[in-house]
């Protein structure tokens, strides 16, 4: 039988949010890249909520952008409402969230892919990974990836493969008793690749997630709901987007609530829920529970919020946030209709739960390469995460590292003090994880340093060195940095005395008068004063861009807290720098406890720092390991 054989550099399997970033990164770094998708219409599909960003996820998008990824740029072009969440709280937890026009988002991303040099889109299901045994074991690697094979029999030889299969592997959707063997949104599932992975020795697991119903806008009574407006002034996601370009007319979202009637219906029909009836095997996420879960687990709550969000400008479909469910269609309808404003609702798409195969990400290095298979990388929900932003972040890193691997350059690993992306990947590959992983702000120990406003200062340079960030973008960051540093220095060295003019000013601001002279920076630290309010007594001040003023304010006002975190980071980095050789023999270390030995053998941490975060490895084990390493 004759077959098509092609030679490329990289094959990316899946064109969701991870696959798109991975493929773009590879192609932009000069790799001949093919991206496979079961349907080109599903490129950058948003099968669940119609937003990008949100608490800590907004940080991820900013970081992706700073590194030269695409997500931020595309959402800036296709959002229909935007909000900075947590604005009343500290700068570290400000987070952008935009409502996307789903169809437009998908189309815009597809356009970027289609016009990217070195990138080919291929509608085809990958059914097999091609790999060969290594003649001599290199570190932990036992196999080397050589390419992929499609359902139609074509072979693509590749130097690296990136798996971004999302929720498609052996997917099945559940809506009460009705079960369909499809991927999200009725799309074709990928039923063969799992077997190929298992035969390569990859450990699989099964996760579950869910999505609420979509309703016809015309059937909803918005008068019974509270209107949720976007911000008056929109802040773009991308550091490269001109803020003037995102001041658009925004659409509204709507807030309503469930009530006891809703909960009664759910309780009465729990036996028909696939989860409670035990039909679902996969583990679901605790952070986005189905409405059944909420009613059962938080039985004392009288009501739950329901957000009605538009899916786009050119569709009447509305997303019913907060009420995902896998109850049967008839229960769903009567349940939704108890909610004020939804009494006469018409459901366009039923809520459903979806189960899919993914991997235990402990099998990956922090570079997102498989520990045992040279040249095989993976990202996104396939790695056991959840969310578009988490997926895109991993896709980008996997794409960058696959390219660096081919170029035989050192791959990048962001650490926990550099980026939320670092926290995300470190958590995935290090900590035991039994549910789809979602980014949360509480997972970042050093979040005062990892702000969305300074993602460019933290990561642009890395993106530039890799080759995904342009010289202009890099220079913009350097200018911001320079101006910020200069201004802080000036404020720290500009003294104001106890002259009447200053005292009057302070009193007028509700601040206490000075006893001795103070610097402007010291005054800024007072809660009631800020950079802006000091303008009246700051005579030498020159005009500065808003993003510089923002940095100056934060860096000075929170200096004490920031420097405390920097000290913690120093301690943390010491342990991260102590590398563990890949060929270490844990059996040769006599004093390790059995549990620690097993965990270390399984996880193969790259540094002592990573080893210390593995559950089941105690501080005493780390001492033993340190001693052993020093003796080698």
């Amino acid at each position: 039988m004759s077959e098509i054989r092609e030679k490329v550099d990289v094959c990316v399997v899946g064109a969701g949010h991870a696959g798109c970033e991975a493929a773009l990164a590879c192609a932009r770094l000069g790799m001949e890249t093919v991206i496979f998708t079961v349907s080109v219409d599903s490129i950058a599909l948003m099968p669940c909520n119609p937003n990008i960003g949100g608490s800590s996820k907004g940080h991820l998008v900013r970081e992706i952008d700073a590194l030269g990824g695409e997500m931020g740029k595309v959402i800036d072009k296709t959002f229909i409402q935007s909000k900075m969440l947590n604005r009343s709280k500290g700068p570290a937890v400000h987070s952008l969230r935009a409502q996307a026009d789903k169809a437009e988002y998908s189309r815009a991303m597809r356009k970027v892919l289609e016009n990217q040099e070195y990138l080919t889109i291929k509608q085809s299901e990958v059914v097999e990974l091609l790999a060969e045994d290594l003649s001599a074991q290199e570190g932990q690697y036992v196999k080397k990836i050589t390419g992929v094979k499609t359902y139609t029999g074509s072979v693509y030889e590749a130097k690296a493969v990136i798996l971004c299969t999302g929720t498609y592997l052996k997917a099945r959707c559940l809506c009460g008793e009705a079960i369909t063997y499809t991927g999200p949104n009725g799309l074709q599932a990928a039923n063969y690749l799992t077997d190929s992975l298992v035969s390569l020795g990859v450990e699989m697991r099964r996760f579950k997630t869910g999505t609420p119903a979509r309703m016809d806008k015309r059937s909803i009574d918005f008068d019974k709901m509270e209107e949720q407006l976007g911000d008056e002034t929109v802040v773009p996601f991308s550091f490269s987007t001109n803020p003037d370009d995102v001041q658009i007319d925004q659409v509204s979202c709507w807030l309503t609530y469930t009530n006891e009637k809703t909960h009664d219906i759910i309780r009465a029909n729990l036996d028909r829920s696939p989860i409670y009836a035990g039909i679902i095997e996969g583990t679901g996420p605790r952070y986005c529970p189905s409405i059944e879960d909420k009613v059962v687990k938080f039985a004392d709550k009288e009501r739950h919020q329901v957000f009605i969000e538009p899916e786009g400008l050119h569709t009447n479909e509305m997303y019913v946030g907060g009420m995902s469910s896998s109850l049967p269609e008839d229960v769903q309808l009567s349940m939704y209709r108890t909610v004020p404003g939804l009494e006469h609702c018409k459901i366009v798409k039923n809520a459903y739960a979806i189960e899919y195969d993914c991997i235990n990400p402990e099998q990956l290095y922090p570079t997102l390469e498989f520990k045992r298979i040279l040249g095989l990388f993976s990202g996104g929900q396939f790695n056991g995460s959840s969310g578009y932003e988490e997926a895109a972040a991993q896709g980008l890193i996997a794409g960058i590292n696959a390219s660096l691997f081919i170029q035989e350059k050192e791959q990048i690993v962001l650490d926990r003090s550099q980026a939320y992306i670092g926290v995300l990947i470190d958590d995935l590959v290090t900590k035991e994880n039994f549910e789809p992983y979602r980014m949360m702000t509480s997972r970042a120990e050093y979040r005062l340093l990892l702000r969305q406003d300074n993602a460019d200062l933290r990561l642009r340079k890395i993106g530039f060195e890799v080759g995904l960030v342009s010289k202009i973008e890099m220079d913009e960051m350097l200018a911001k940095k320079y101006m910020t540093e200069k201004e802080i220095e000036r404020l720290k060295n500009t003294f104001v005395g106890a002259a009447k003019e200053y005292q009057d000013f302070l009193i007028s601001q509700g601040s206490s008068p000075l006893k001795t002279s103070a610097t402007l920076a010291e005054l800024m630290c007072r809660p009631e004063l800020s950079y802006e309010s000091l303008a009246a007594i700051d005579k030498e001040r020159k005009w500065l861009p808003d993003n510089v003023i923002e940095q100056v304010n934060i860096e000075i006002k929170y200096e004490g807290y920031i420097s405390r975190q920097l000290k913690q980071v120093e301690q943390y980095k010491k342990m991260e720098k102590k590398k563990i050789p890949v060929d270490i023999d844990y059996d040769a270390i006599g004093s390790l406890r059995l549990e620690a030995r097993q965990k270390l053998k399984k996880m193969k941490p790259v540094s002592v720092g990573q080893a210390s975060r593995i559950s089941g490895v105690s501080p005493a084990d780390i001492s033993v390991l340190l001693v052993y390493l020093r003796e080698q």
Partner: protein
Amino acid sequence: MRTDTIAAIATAVSDSGIGIIRVSGDGAIENIDKIYRSKSEKKRLTDVRSHTIHYGFIYDGEELIDEVMVLVMKAPNTYTKEDTVEIDCHGGILVMRKILETVIKNGCRLAEAGEFTKRAFLNGRIDLSKAEAIMDLIHSKNEFALKASVQQLKGSVSDKVKSLRGDILYEIAFIESALDDPEHISLDGYCEKLEQMALSVKKDLGKLIDTADNGKLLKDGIHTVIVGKPNVGKSSLLNLIVGEEKAIVTSVAGTTRDALEEYVKLNGIGLNIIDTAGIRDTKDEVERIGVERARTYANNADLIIYVVDASRKLDENDREIVKLISDKKVIVLLNKTDLDQVVSDSELMTLVSEINHLRIIKTSTKENIGIDEFENVIKEMFFGGSIVVNDEIYITSERHKEALLEAYESMDLVLKSLADDMPEDFYSIDLMSAYAALGRIIGEEVGEDVVNEIFSKFCMGK
């Protein structure tokens, strides 16, 4: 790479003749130089040759702590292969403790169990063949230290620590869930609630610190009450200890009509000394109130100093006093021994035979006789015996105290952030530090606690 500098008491922590505090690390010599003064005050430890010994004094700021010999040994020919300084001091527990505290204040940190040995290893001081055996040792030491520290805590204390941690964790999780899901969980009006909670946790931590071995005594001083008949020399004694004329001293009986309180430090031990009106049967109303108060003070005291005038006959009043103080720790000072002694030893012994914890010292406040002995006796009564344990346990309890104090300070910072109107996410930073510090006491790490608590206690969105 620059290593941090560690310090520990290297000898047994007991009242022995000589104690050694060992310091190791890149900053060892310069840190000790900050607190060392030679006799001429000209010598700098940073200038001296390696492996030399130097006479001088250790100062905490301007306060003289002890007369010492300091041994300076530069890397690599030391036990740890790092710069090492040993301070040979007097062997009292409090002196050693005080020097260790000063050393730590000046840039060192308390060594962990077995850490000197560990460093000796890491720096290749001990050869490969010994490696495994000593690794086992380190291992078991760590395990032991942890177990010891957990056991050492009384059940009630460790329960209390756990319950405080639980309270703190709940608040962290609440704040964090609101940050992660601001549209579902609101922090409106939360500050008042948190303030109440922070105050109460801080108060409880304060109490725990007070109960940590001699924490209360070390922190607040020993509540000492001087009692005795009028004009036996109580006020003179106080003045002698305090070093200034505070109490009115005359030879008219009943001069001190109310109690006087004074805080003094004797060799690092704090004493809260209350001088009371002389106790006697009296008709004078003002004096009678003073006597009543003396009884109350005596009841609440940690230590009673009972002053007896050796030159006057014992009488009914003395027997009354002894009744009052028989269940206390008592030091009897047979004062005025410079005068003719009319109280015989056997008379005195008969009088005080009911007192359980008793020491008798002959003094003359006028001639300054017996005061040194008096100071030593206080040390023995409060810090002798009970504190003499092996160094591992000493360190762990020191660590507990350190951890409790850290948690206490973190709660203070939470309150400060609240007072400064900082945004809510800043509260959880210090709550987290308090949570982690308390975790060290019971040997628990933070791990996924917060995330798990968020999901189990708060209903998140979507």
